[in-house]
């Protein structure tokens, strides 16, 4: 009776949950509920990797069936930037659709989904004071003056949003844009243009050092604190790479998952609408800072797949990675194929060249409320100057209105599944067993990678953290007359094969096995 009642309640909440269509990006408690719901699925293994300094969970979902650690895997990553709330929703929707309508993909591929790696920062989207936050909840002295977080933002106009402040000052560097008077641009001094404003994030100089909002009351940014090109001593990066609970917990977990062959990260960086560029000089240096040549070719191929699947044009996209970020770490330091996309760009509108003017023109056309008009306020640090607060509302430039997310998610789910379909695929071909007489048999076989992707990124062939292909013949040592019982193969290229030969003194059958967790395994029974 009680059980029935409980079940009934559960059903009711589920129905209710679905009937209220989500109208905005979810809160952390809503994402937690969705993650818990996902974990009820038999294919989903949910793990809490750690709790952040702010007490928030870092979740990992491993989604797969059967021998899921032996199948090649793709890791889908959201929330590497706390302000990029879209990325969390995309990662979650990918997982939700995967266990629902796309479950067939689990037959050959395992997926890891890390929905949110910056929950402390993400929470700011729903806080009473909203601003685009990157850092977690640890106390950090960003301006290195001996006191942590002593000059953060201040909501000067009391609207609950951190926007900008402009101080009328002929010595300032900024002036208004010709494309939209609301937008501020740097005065073109080379063309003799005068400045009109000094511009800062909404703040007061609380530590009296003449600088504004230079020592934020937030901690380390996940996407600026990993080990590739770690920007040591910079604000939001800290003094040591991978210093935070969440970054260490994630990496410790990833280093134990040998089957990941590719990452898809939703982040401001982009190598999908256009591939990374190859520089022979930078690729040759001891500290490699260019994608390697063969990997560039793979990137270009995947990029083409992306632009065919996701029609949006990457308007004014310039970020192909920033120092200490996650997407470059996954390639340069973890040696996996690594792809990143912001997943959304504001459409190009009415030929505006300034990104903000373009955004406002487009947003105005949809009658959206995305701008805080410049309004005079009294500022304690500029008692005798005109100070106005205003600007584009936080989050609006990088995150689309929530009602657009469904379509974006669908396109990106398609892309990830197409990428999975390309995964390395090892097969045995041309198997021959020839009797040499007196109980001796020669076995020859080709191992073929039936995939447009090499089994190892070129970077991966250099790394210890990708296993080599291991070829085993299952006969006792004394029955193996020639050939290797265990043979390690560095990699197989796209549609490449390699041949093996053994002589055995065996009546058979004999088992062959070849592969690596990130490339999958092929098995073959030889009977003679």
């Amino acid at each position, binding site marked *: 009776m009680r059980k029935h009642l409980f079940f009934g309640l559960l059903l009711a909440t589920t129905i209710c949950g679905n009937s209220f269509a989500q109208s905005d990006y979810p809160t952390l408690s809503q994402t937690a509920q969705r993650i818990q719901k996902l974990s009820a699925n038999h294919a989903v293994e949910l793990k809490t990797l750690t709790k952040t300094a702010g007490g928030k969970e870092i979740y990992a979902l491993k989604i797969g069936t059967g021998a899921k650690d032996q199948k090649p895997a793709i890791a889908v990553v959201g929330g590497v930037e706390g302000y990029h709330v879209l990325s969390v929703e995309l990662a979650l929707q990918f997982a939700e659709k995967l266990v629902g309508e796309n479950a067939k993909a689990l037959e050959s591929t395992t997926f890891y989904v890390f929905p949110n790696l910056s929950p402390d920062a993400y929470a700011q989207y729903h806080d009473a004071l909203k601003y685009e936050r990157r850092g977690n909840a640890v106390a950090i002295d960003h301006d290195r003056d001996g006191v942590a977080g002593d000059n953060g933002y201040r909501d000067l106009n009391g609207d609950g949003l951190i926007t900008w402040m402009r101080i009328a000052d002929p010595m300032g560097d900024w002036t208004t844009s010709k494309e939209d008077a609301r937008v501020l641009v740097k005065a073109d001094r080379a063309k003799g243009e005068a400045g009109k404003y000094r511009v800062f994030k909404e703040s007061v100089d609380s530590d*009296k050092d003449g600088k504004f909002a230079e020592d934020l009351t937030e901690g380390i940014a996940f996407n600026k604190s990993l080990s590739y090109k770690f920007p040591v001593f910079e604000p939001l990066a800290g*003094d*040591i*790479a*991978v210093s935070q609970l969440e*970054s260490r917990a994630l*990496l410790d977990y990833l280093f134990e998952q040998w089957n990941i062959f590719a990452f898809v990260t939703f982040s401001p960086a982009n190598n999908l609408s256009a591939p990374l560029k190859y520089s022979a000089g930078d690729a040759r240096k001891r*500290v490699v800072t260019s994608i390697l040549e063969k990997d560039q070719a793979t990137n270009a191929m995947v990029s083409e797949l992306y632009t065919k699947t996701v029609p949006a044009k990457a308007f004014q996209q310039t970020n192909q990675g920033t120092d200490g970020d996650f997407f470059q770490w996954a390639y340069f330091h973890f040696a996996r194929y690594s792809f990143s996309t912001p997943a959304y760009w504001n459409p190009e509108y009415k030929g505006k060249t300034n990104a903000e003017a373009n955004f406002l023109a487009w947003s105005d056309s949809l009658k959206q409320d995305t701008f805080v008009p410049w309004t005079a306020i009294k500022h304690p640090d500029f008692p005798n100057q005109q100070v106005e607060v205003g600007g584009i509302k936080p989050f609006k430039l990088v995150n689309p209105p929530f009602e657009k997310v469904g379509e974006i998610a669908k396109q990106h789910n398609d892309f990830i599944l197409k990428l999975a379909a390309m995964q390395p695929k090892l097969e045995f071909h041309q198997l021959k067993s020839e009797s040499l007489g007196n109980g001796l048999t020669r076995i020859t076989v080709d191992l073929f990678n039936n995939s447009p992707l090499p089994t190892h990124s070129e970077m991966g062939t250099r790394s210890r953290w990708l296993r*080599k292909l*291991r070829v085993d013949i299952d006969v006792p040592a004394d029955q193996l007359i020639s050939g290797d019982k265990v043979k390690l193969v560095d990699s197989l290229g796209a549609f490449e094969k390699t041949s093996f030969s053994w002589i055995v003194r065996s009546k058979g059958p004999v088992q062959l096995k070849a592969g690596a967790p990130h490339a999958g395994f092929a098995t073959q029974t030889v009977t003679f």
Partner: protein
Amino acid sequence: MKIMNIKHTVTALALGALSLSSFEVSAQQENYFRAIGTPHQPKVEIAWNRYYSAEGLWDLMKKIAVAHPKIARIESIGKSVEGRDILTLTITDFASGKDTDKPAMWIDGNIHSNEVQGGEFSLYVAWYLTEMHGDNEFVKQLLKDKTFYITPTINPDARNNFFKEPNTASSPRSGMLVLDNDGDGKNGEDRMDDLDGDGHITMMIRKSPTGRFIKDPLDPRRLMQVGPDQVGEYEMLGQEGVDNDGDGEVNEDGIGYYDPNRDWGWNWQPDYIQRGAMRYPFTLPENRAVMEFVWKHPNIAGAQSFHNSGGMILRGPGAEEDLNTYNREDIRIYDAIGKKGEEMIPGYRYLTVYKDLYSVFGGELDWFYGNRGIFTYTNELMVSYLYFNKEAGRGNQEEQLKVDQLLTFGDAFVNYKEYKHPQFGTVEIGGFKKTFGRAHPGFLLEQDAHRNAAFTIYHAYHTPKLSITEVKEEELGGGLKAITATIFNERMMPTHASQDLKYRIERPDYVTLSGAKVLAGFVVEDADMKKYKEQTHSPEKMAVANIPGMGAVQVRWIVSSGSAYSVTVDSAKGGKASWKK
């Protein structure tokens, strides 16, 4: 009355015992005479001609802390991979101030587990300072001014493995994490095998018609290569072991391939760039414990790490790519201390890692300097010069055979002996023991430990020492006064290395005036030309970017009242100083 009686008896007994034992001591004392430079009748007796396991070191460290409670304390700063404590001795005169209020010297050893004598050398520093404190004015003053944090082994697990398990002189270099060295998906499945059961992994040779070696007829320990036109008798099969996993290779997957000295978070690079690196900086708990301790002790201004071997006093940069991290001002100080070290330790040369050794990322000394602005040396202990006062070069086999003939009388070598090998048939096993070559023989340990200890003491001595040498008052009229304080640093090291200043690693030094109403405050840029730099915010607490070595800074205040005022200096790496009117 009865109680009284018992008490008397107890006292009498105690007195008797005391007089008896003091009688014995004084009788013995007549036969012991103080040798210069060595603690006489130390409270903790330590034999400096043998090696100690991790537990052996800790036992002695604990004895030091118990015997010298006013100047030595012991604590665990973290745990190793196998759960052992990382033990640190803090040595300072606690009566003259908290350890963290004084400029400090960090000393560790044994980051590479086979480089064992760093443990004994570090311990020697602690022993020497504590036992000499009562007898020696220099040491007494040093412990008033400075703090020493001494961690003899930051790799206790594999230190024990080196001694207690079969090894070569070069194994293990890592800690005890077992990894997949050969990349076949299995961890540590083909380790070395001590076939002759003597605790040493030596060499296997085999008689062979195609061998290219013969045994020297004058010295059968020595294998000689035959000429291109000569027939040999032996072939080399490599280190003692068998193919345990049947993959056709011997000893190819031992304990982890990693190197704890590629794990430090300054310009850290992954394994494919820097072999031996782990997952990310400070993956290893032993190093993380040190890093966290250093973070909590910003008073650490100098550091010393003991390795072996080769007789080197090394400074960074470790990597050529870090050349710009070390600039001329700091190199002058490195040079001054390092070159003094060459004089103090015969046979040792002062060198720079990236150009004289190898170019390497993720080393401990680069982290200490690059990330924390701490002047740091790595000493490669033991140099063959100590054998015969000759430069025979590192790992010179001819010389080593001679040492074992003339000085150690065969103790260093396992003579070749036949062994039935399951895969190679009849082989012979022999060679130098693991504790020879890189490690000091017993009779050289104490002297070299003392000289290296003296070098770190010299280094520690030159961490900053601040004093307020002058406070000058000028009447400005109208009830105003100018007060100028001079703060002198009477040692070579600045309070902030130039690397520190470049990145603002450590907070500035604060010079505070209290007991007077401050109207304005300045850092004096040129006293003669009256050039002052004003600090408008909280002028009573002046922030000074740096106090240079063997140099002074001046700060100046304009005050409107206050006759009984005081000046205090508070520097993270330079300690504290005060002055009172």
